[in-house]
C-alpha cells in the first residue's frame, strides 16, 4: 500500500507542476485507480473556493497590526521598567514583614505608575453625542455580535460601530476632537488612547459609509489621528476632513481645512484644503485634485458629458445620480477638477435651495482690474475683495449671474500643495535628487549553535534611481569591513550579479536596474564549538569615487540559543522547586509547558498534572515534555485505538508508583509500534476501526492512575494531601 501511496503522491505532484504533463500522465494510466484519484484531487484544486472580501482583508490586516502594536510594547516597556526598577531591592529583603512591606510599596508605586500611564480620565473612550436612528456596537469587533447603543454611551478600543439608514452619530474624544458617522457607516474603533497634555491617539478603520472629522490640532510627539479604509488611509495633525468609502472599497478623502496625509499601498500624498484624492484597491495612488460644488440649470443630460449652466460635467461609472434630473431642473453637482481641468461629478442631486452658484478651489491664473481667472475660468471681482497674486491657491465662492460668474468670497489658502501633474519626469519636486540605495537595508540571521553551519549567504540589491536623463548609471566601489566577531570568520565573499568581487572592485549600477549583491560569510572550520551567544557583523560599503559619498549596509549573523528544559533539576534548584510543590505559587517552567502544549490540554497537559508528575512522580520537566511530544506525534493513531487515551498513559510507562519503568527510547518504540498498528487497521474507506487494538497497552502497570486522570484532568495533589 505504501508504494501505491508514494506513486499517487508523485502523480499528484506532477499535476501541481505542469498541467500539460498532467494530461499526458492521465492518458498514460487512464485505467489505473490512481488516475481516478488524481481527477478527484484536480477537481478540488480547480474549484472556485471561497475567499474573504478584500475590504475585510484590509480592515483585518489593520486590526492585526494594531493588536501586535498593543501587545509587544506593553511586554517590552512595562516589564523591563519594573524589573529594572525593583530588581535590586529584592536582594535586601530578608524577612516576611520586609517582603510584605516592599510588596505593598511595589503595589502602590505600580498602581501610581499604572494610573499615570493610563493617561487622563476618559482618554481611552469616546462618547456618543447627537445620535439619530439605528446605532449598533459590536464589543468584539466580530460581525455577529451587534447590540444597540445610544447617545451618552461610550465606545473604546476594539469595538465596532455602525449606523443604519437615515442614522448618524458624533463621536467625541476626550480633548474635544469629533468624528461624525453618517448613514450606513461601519467603523472599527481600532485604538483610542490619550496622555496628559491632551495627547490624543486615535486609529479608526472605516469599512463603509461616510465620516466627517474635526480634529483639534494634536499635541505631543506621540499624538496621532488616523483613518484606514480598505484602499487607503488618512493621517492628520489637526484638520477637518471627510472620508467616503464605496461598496467597491474605493475611498474618497476630501479636506475642508488644514492638510491630510493620504497613503495607499506604500505611496503617500498630501491633500490640502479644497482638495480630494481617490484611492482604489490595487490601483496606484491618484494625485490630489480640487473639489467643486456647482448649483445651476441642467441644460443637457445626454451621454457622459452633461451641461450645467454652461459647464461641461463629466459623468463617470462611479457618479451617483439621485432622482431623475430633467433638462431645466436646478441641480447640485459635487465633484473634482481633474488634471486636464475637466469637472468630474461624484454626485448629482436636486438643489436644496434657490439660486445658482458654487464653490471650488484653484490657482489664480490672471488678474485684471475688476476681474480675475481661476484655473482659467473668468470671474467678476467686486471692489474691496482680498488682494491675491497670480499663482495663489484660493477657494472661491461665486454666484452665477447674467453677466457671468460673480465672486462672493475669495479665501487665500495658507497651505499650498500644487497637485502632482501625474507624470514621472521629476519636475514636480525641484529638490528631487538621484538616489543610490540598498534594498533591503537590514539583514540579520538568527541561528542556534546547534544549527550553525559553516557558511551563511545574504542577498541584497544595490539600486540607482536617476532623475537626470544624462546620468543613466553610477560607478561605485564595493568593499566590506568586519565590525564584530572577526575571530569566528574565515572568509567573506562579495559578489555582484554572481561575479565574485575583490574588495574595492568598481561596480556599475544602471538606472532602475538593481545589481544583486551577495555576501557569503564562512566561519572558521577549526571552531568546534561556538560560544553560547555571539554575533558577526559585516559592513558592506559602497563608495562613489568621485564625490566620496558612501553608503553602508550591515549583515549580521547572531546566535543566542534558548536553553532546553532540563531533564533533571540541579541541586541548586531543588529547594526552590520544592517550594512550588508545597505552596500555591505557580512554577514558571510548568506554566511554560502548559502554554506550549495548550493543544493537548484536553488530554492532560494541564498545569496541575505537570506539577503532579513533577512533585509526586519526580519527573523532570524535560521528561514531561518528552511525553507531550510523543503524544502529540501519535495522537490521532492513539485516539483511534482508544478515544480515552491520555498523556498519563505514556507517563505510566515511565514511572509507576514512584518507581522508574521503561526508558524513553523504549517508550518511543512502544508508542510508535502501537500507532503503526492503528494505521494498519484502518479500513479503506477510512472509517472506524473494526476492533480497538492495543488493549494490552491498557493493561500496563499504572493504568489505575490513568483512569483516575481521565476523570477530570487530575486536579493538583499536594504532598500534604
Amino acid at each position, binding site marked *: *500500500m*505504501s508504494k*501505491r*501511496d*508514494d506513486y*499517487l*503522491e*508523485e502523480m499528484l*505532484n506532477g499535476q*501541481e507542476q505542469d498541467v500539460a504533463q498532467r494530461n499526458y500522465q492521465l492518458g498514460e494510466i487512464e485505467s489505473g*485507480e490512481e488516475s*481516478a*484519484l488524481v*481527477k*478527484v*484531487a*484536480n*477537481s*478540488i*484544486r480547480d*474549484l*472556485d*473556493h*471561497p*475567499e*474573504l472580501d478584500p475590504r*475585510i*482583508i484590509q480592515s*483585518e*490586516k*489593520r486590526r*492585526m*497590526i494594531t*493588536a*501586535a502594536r498593543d*501587545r*509587544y510594547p506593553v*511586554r*517590552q516597556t512595562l516589564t523591563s521598567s519594573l524589573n529594572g526598577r525593583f530588581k535590586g531591592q529584592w536582594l535586601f529583603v530578608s524577612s516576611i514583614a520586609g517582603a510584605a512591606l516592599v510588596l505593598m510599596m511595589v503595589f502602590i508605586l505600580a498602581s501610581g505608575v499604572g494610573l499615570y500611564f493610563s493617561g487622563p480620565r476618559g482618554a481611552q473612550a469616546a462618547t456618543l453625542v447627537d445620535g439619530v436612528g439605528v446605532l449598533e456596537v459590536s464589543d468584539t*469587533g466580530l*460581525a*455577529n455580535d451587534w447590540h444597540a447603543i445610544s447617545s451618552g454611551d461610550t465606545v473604546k478600543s476594539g469595538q465596532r460601530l455602525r449606523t443604519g439608514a437615515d442614522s448618524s452619530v458624533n463621536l467625541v474624544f476626550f480633548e474635544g476632537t469629533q468624528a461624525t458617522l453618517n448613514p450606513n457607516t461601519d467603523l472599527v474603533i481600532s485604538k483610542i488612547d490619550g496622555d496628559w497634555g491632551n495627547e490624543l491617539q486615535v486609529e479608526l478603520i472605516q469599512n463603509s459609509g461616510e465620516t466627517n472629522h474635526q480634529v483639534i490640532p494634536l499635541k505631543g510627539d506621540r499624538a496621532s489621528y488616523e483613518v484606514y479604509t480598505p484602499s487607503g488611509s488618512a493621517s492628520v495633525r489637526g484638520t477637518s476632513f471627510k472620508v467616503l468609502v464605496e461598496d467597491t472599497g474605493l475611498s474618497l478623502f476630501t479636506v475642508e481645512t488644514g492638510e491630510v496625509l493620504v497613503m495607499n499601498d506604500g505611496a503617500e500624498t498630501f491633500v490640502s484644503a479644497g482638495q480630494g484624492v481617490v484611492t482604489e484597491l490595487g490601483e496606484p495612488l491618484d494625485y490630489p485634485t480640487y473639489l467643486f460644488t456647482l448649483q445651476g440649470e441642467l441644460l443637457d443630460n445626454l451621454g457622459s458629458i452633461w451641461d450645467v449652466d454652461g459647464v461641461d460635467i463629466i459623468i463617470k461609472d462611479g457618479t451617483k445620480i439621485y432622482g431623475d434630473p430633467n433638462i431645466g431642473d436646478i441641480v447640485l453637482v459635487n465633484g473634482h477638477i481633474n488634471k486636464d481641468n475637466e469637472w468630474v461629478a461624484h454626485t448629482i442631486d436636486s438643489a436644496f435651495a434657490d439660486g445658482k452658484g458654487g464653490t471650488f478651489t484653484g490657482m489664480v491664473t490672471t488678474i485684471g482690474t475688476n476681474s480675475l481667472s481661476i484655473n482659467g475660468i473668468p470671474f467678476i471681482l467686486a471692489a474691496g475683495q482680498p488682494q491675491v497674486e497670480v499663482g495663489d491657491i484660493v477657494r472661491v465662492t461665486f454666484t452665477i449671474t447674467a453677466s457671468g460668474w460673480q465672486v462672493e468670497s475669495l479665501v487665500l489658502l495658507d497651505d499650498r500643495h500644487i497637485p502632482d501633474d501625474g507624470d514621472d519626469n521629476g519636475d514636480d519636486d525641484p529638490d528631487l535628487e538621484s538616489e543610490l540605495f540598498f534594498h533591503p537595508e537590514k*539583514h540579520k*540571521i538568527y541561528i*542556534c549553535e546547534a544549527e550553525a553551519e559553516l557558511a551563511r549567504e545574504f542577498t541584497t540589491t544595490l539600486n540607482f534611481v536617476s532623475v537626470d536623463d544624462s546620468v543613466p548609471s553610477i560607478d561605485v566601489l564595493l568593499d566590506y569591513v568586519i565590525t564584530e566577531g572577526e575571530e569566528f570568520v574565515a572568509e567573506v565573499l562579495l559578489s555582484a550579479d554572481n561575479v565574485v568581487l575583490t574588495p574595492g572592485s568598481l561596480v556599475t549600477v544602471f538606472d532602475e536596474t538593481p545589481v544583486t549583491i551577495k555576501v557569503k560569510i564562512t566561519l572558521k572550520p577549526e571552531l568546534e564549538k561556538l560560544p553560547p551567544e555571539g554575533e558577526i557583523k559585516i559592513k558592506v560599503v559602497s563608495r562613489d569615487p568621485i564625490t566620496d559619498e558612501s553608503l553602508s549596509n550591515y549583515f549580521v549573523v547572531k546566535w543566542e540559543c534558548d536553553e532546553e528544559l532540563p531533564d533533571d533539576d540541579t541541586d541548586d534548584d531543588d529547594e526552590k522547586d520544592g517550594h512550588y510543590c508545597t505552596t500555591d505559587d505557580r512554577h514558571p517552567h510548568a506554566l511554560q509547558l502548559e*502554554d*506550549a502544549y*495548550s*493543544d493537548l490540554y484536553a488530554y492532560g497537559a494541564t498545569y496541575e498534572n505537570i506539577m503532579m508528575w513533577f512533585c509526586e512522580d519526580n519527573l523532570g520537566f524535560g521528561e514531561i515534555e518528552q511525553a507531550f511530544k510523543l503524544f*502529540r506525534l*501519535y495522537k*490521532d*493513531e492513539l485516539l483511534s485505538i482508544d478515544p480515552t487515551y491520555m498523556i498519563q498513559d505514556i507517563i505510566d510507562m515511565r514511572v509507576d508508583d514512584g518507581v522508574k519503568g521503561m526508558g524513553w527510547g523504549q517508550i518511543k518504540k512502544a508508542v510508535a509500534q502501537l500507532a503503526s498498528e492503528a*494505521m494498519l487497521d*484502518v479500513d*479503506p*474507506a*477510512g*472509517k*472506524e476501526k473494526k476492533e480497538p487494538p492495543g488493549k494490552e497497552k491498557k493493561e500496563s502497570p499504572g493504568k489505575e492512575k490513568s483512569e483516575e486522570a481521565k476523570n477530570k484532568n487530575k486536579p493538583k495533589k499536594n504532598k500534604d494531601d
Partner: protein
Amino acid sequence: MEEREYQPGGDLFDPLNGDLIRRAQEGEPSVVGELYEHYQRGIYRYLFYRVGDMQTAEDLTSEVFLRMIEKLPNYSGRSLTFKAWLFQIARNLSIDHYRRMNIRKDVLLADNYPEGGDEPLEMITKDLTSEKLYHALVELPENQRDVIIMRFVVGMPVREVAQSLHKSENSVKGLQRRALMSLRDILIKWEVAYV
C-alpha cells in the same frame, strides 16, 4: 521528488529564511500585517471547509491571527514550519469551536441533509461545487478531511501537512489515498461530475 508550494508566492515567506517571522517576533507590527495578508486565504479556506459557514470561518480566521500574535514569541521554528504552526492553531480553534458549540458530526449531517433523503438539497446540479465538496468532506473522518483540505484546497505539501497534523509523511500519504478514494465513492454515489 522535491516538495513545492501550490499557492503562488509561498516562497516569499519560506520559514527557512525566517526573517519575517523573526521580525514579527521582535515586535514589528507591520510584519504581522504582512503575515496576515499572506496566510489569510489558506486559513480562511481551511476553516470554511471545517465549519461550513462563511461568517464563522471569518471570525475564526480573525481568532487564528490574534492567537498567532499572542503565541508568536513562543514559536521557535525548530520542529515545524511557520505555516504548519499556523494551521495547528487553526485546527485547534476549529476543534474548540465544535466543543463550544457542542456540535457532533451526526448533528451536522442532520442539518445539511433533507429529511428522508439520501442526498443534500444542493445536489440538483451535477457539477462539483464548494458546497458539495463541504458536504462530501463531512462524510470523511476528521484526519482525512484535514488532509484533503490542506493538500488540495490550501495547496500545502505533504511535509507541512504532516507537521500540522503531528503525523509522519507516510501516514499523510496513506490518509490522502484513503480520503480520495472515499471522496470518489461519495461523488459517484451522488452522481456528481468531478472532472
